[in-house]
């Protein structure tokens, strides 16, 4: 899994490529902790190239959401595949996260 960070306006977008699973979620965690150190307040996680997320991945996204929130910022998810989105629906995490269809819409919705 590779996480690329880019700035779009005053938002930080993390573009994840690969799976967020038991073995790779620590790498995703490192990426969002780095963004938090940079005091980012508007964070978008683009999951367009993430075909697989397991319960460890969901837990790490919850942690990212909470850490960004507790530092006064907001985190949004975007471009979820139908299957990944279904996991958020089953676990009711869709109610916790702000899930936007596209990166552009996510950035504009802050």
């Amino acid at each position, binding site marked *: 899994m590779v996480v690329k960070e880019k700035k779009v306006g005053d938002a930080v977008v993390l573009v994840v490529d690969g799976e967020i699973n*038991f*073995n790779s979620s620590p790498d995703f965690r490192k990426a969002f902790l780095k963004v938090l150190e940079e005091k980012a307040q508007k964070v978008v996680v683009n999951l367009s190239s993430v075909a697989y997320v*397991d*319960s460890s991945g969901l*837990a790490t996204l*919850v942690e990212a959401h909470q850490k960004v929130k507790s530092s006064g910022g907001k985190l949004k998810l975007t471009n979820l595949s139908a299957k990944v989105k279904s996991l958020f629906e*089953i*676990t009711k995490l869709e109610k*916790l996260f702000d899930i936007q269809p596209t990166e552009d819409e996510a950035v504009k919705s802050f």
Partner: protein
Amino acid sequence: MKELEFEIPSDPEYIKDASEKVLGFLEGLELTKEILFDIRLCLEEAVINAIKYGNKLEKAIPVSIRVSFSEGRLEIMVKDCGKGFQYSDIPDPRSSKNILKHGGRGLFLIRNLMDEVVFNDSGNEIKMIKSISGGKSDGG
């Protein structure tokens, strides 16, 4: 009846090997990508639980996996060498007091994505059953 049985060490590096072996075994059944996603996720969640909680990440202790497919019925068994756990006491990860917790979603996902989930009495063996319609059955 098609059957596959193997063991992996209790090392997270082998999680993907296990699911690749199982998905390879199911090749030819013309299952949809969605069903293959569910099967992979449930298998990997069960294997992670077995490695982490059952065998306490002791690499030398094996996790046993058995898969069988017959007449549209897929059965996946994952067994560890641990003491088992109280599988009936798993809290609902969707509730407001649990939604932010780190753990508890793996087994919940398995229960939602499989048709039937059965534990042995001691709780160190999980059997996951999924009926597969539309796939190409081997006819038993």
